[in-house]
């Protein structure tokens, strides 16, 4: 079974909530966790993963290279490049490798042979290792500037599956782009984390539309519900409208930042805090789905 935690908007507290939920799930389940926020993976900080057991790079990606000695500077490639990543460099043209998506078009339109070639690049790595909490952890890490976080996430999930655990929990990226699509695709349940603001609901609404594409079941969690309680009826209306039960209300709690500074799930070091009480309730509710 796969549960994915996602939020649409970044910075609503998704990783803190996920880390604490993982801590609880890990105690009673055969679990593997996946950090699918390939652009900005951070869960390893909260789960204290220091020694990675293995690493695999994503291969098969390529970028175009123009041979400056053979290029006659006609500029056809730059005009056709759909990603606008070929620039003039004196008399010849040059590919900005950071932006190139390896689509091939430049070499199709180049009137001369052997001017444009392709070289392999490694867009990112997948690492795995043990956490301090009896479960394994897989993290997808995209190198700066590389496209295709979706492929990386897909591969990270594949790798996690090969561990043959009963439960996989995926911490998805913010947004609704290719890595989020790869995260939610194949999920049995998506936990949508929001905070009580219009901005958060707007982004969550976009996320839910993606979930609709895949027909994925969803539940809601409201983080810091008490800091804007006037807005809570709107939040409740939102979740009703998208057919998601709210499985938890998490209050604002300073301990969350303290836990983050110490690199631990809050529920471990502040088990009696308001935050932890709410997380335990969410865990009990989510158990019904597992």
């Amino acid at each position, binding site marked *: 079974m796969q549960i994915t935690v996602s939020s649409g908007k970044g910075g609503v507290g998704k990783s803190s909530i996920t880390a604490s939920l993982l801590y609880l799930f890990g105690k009673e389940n055969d679990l593997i966790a996946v950090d699918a926020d390939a*652009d900005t993976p951070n869960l390893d*900080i909260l789960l204290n993963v220091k020694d990675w057991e293995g690493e695999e790079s994503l291969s098969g990606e390529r970028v175009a290279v123009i041979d400056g000695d053979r290029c006659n500077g006609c500029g056809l490639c730059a005009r056709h490049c759909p990603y606008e990543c070929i620039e003039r460099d004196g008399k010849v043209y040059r590919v900005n490798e950071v932006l190139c998506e390896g689509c091939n078009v430049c070499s199709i339109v180049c009137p001369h042979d052997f001017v444009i070639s392709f070289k392999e690049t490694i867009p990112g790595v997948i690492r795995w290792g043990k956490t301090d909490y009896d479960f394994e952890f897989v993290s997808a890490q995209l190198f*700066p500037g590389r496209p295709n976080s979706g492929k990386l996430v897909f591969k990270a999930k594949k790798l996690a599956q090969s561990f043959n655990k009963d439960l996989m929990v995926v911490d998805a990226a913010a947004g609704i782009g290719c890595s989020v699509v790869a995260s939610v695709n194949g999920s049995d349940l998506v936990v949508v984390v929001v905070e009580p603001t219009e901005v958060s609901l707007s982004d969550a609404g976009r996320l839910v539309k993606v979930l609709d594409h895949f027909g994925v079941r969803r539940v809601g969690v409201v983080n810091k519900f008490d800091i804007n309680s006037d807005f809570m009826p709107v939040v409740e209306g939102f979740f009703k409208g998208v057919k998601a039960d709210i499985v938890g209300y998490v209050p604002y709690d300073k301990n969350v930042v303290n836990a983050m500074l110490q690199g631990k799930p809050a529920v471990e070091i502040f088990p009696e805090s308001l935050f932890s009480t709410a997380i335990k309730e969410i865990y009990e509710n989510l158990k019904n789905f597992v």
Partner: protein
Amino acid sequence: MIIAFSGGKGGTGKSTVSTNITVLLESFALVDLDVEAPDDHILLSTELVKVKDVNLFQPVFNHEACFACGRCVDACHDNAIISGRDGKPILIPELCGGCRGCKLVCPSREAIGEGKRLVGKIYENLTPYGFPLITGELLEGEKKTYKVLLETRKYALSRYSDLIFDTAAGAGNSIFKALENVDLVVTVTEPTPFGVRDLQKILEVTKQLERKTVVVINRSGTGNESIVENLCNKYGVKVVGRIPYSKNIIKGYFENEPIVTTSLPEAEIFKNLKDRILEEACR
């Protein structure tokens, strides 16, 4: 002049800072390049009105005129074309990135027609604060973040010369494109281990792009700022402002009321920040 706000990590307050600064600057246009989650219009109480669609090319195969040569299949780097039993191409639309490679290699003039796929929208509106807001939006279920960003950026550059870019989190190739050739990158971070790690990534990006960069520490006073400072020293970038954790700022955020339009003491912090940013951008 283009000033870009970026952050590495999501939720550090990039949009709060960039909207407030644009309100103060008055003569700039704000461009929301966080196309997967564009929110500035909400913070600025502005209804979105579409000005442009973002379409991708998508081949439409005409099997009558097709020679079944298979070149399009070979040319497609996204593996979006498969060869049918008669050797003629079949498109898997979800995989097509719209690069036009297939059409460019096809030896038949009529075998591949011009189709399109709507992947995003661009909006332009006048905000109640008197400056224009340009918003790029990726449609739900679509994946071409880069393309929508590219088109939104191009549209904005064709309309105005003084721009504020509000970019997405992360450090992928669309962030590189967003920050390309800007005059100053203002990185908004928070003093937590998450914030610091992601700040390092974005500083790595701006170093590669050779862009002048400054840092704003948001929610100052809630974590450990010396690690942020050490990192800034390492990259040789300045901390130009500290925004304290403030109930008023949060309230302004909840109520979609830019704090700089109030007479609260926090408004002063943003005014100073604006001056520092302009100073750095003009240096």
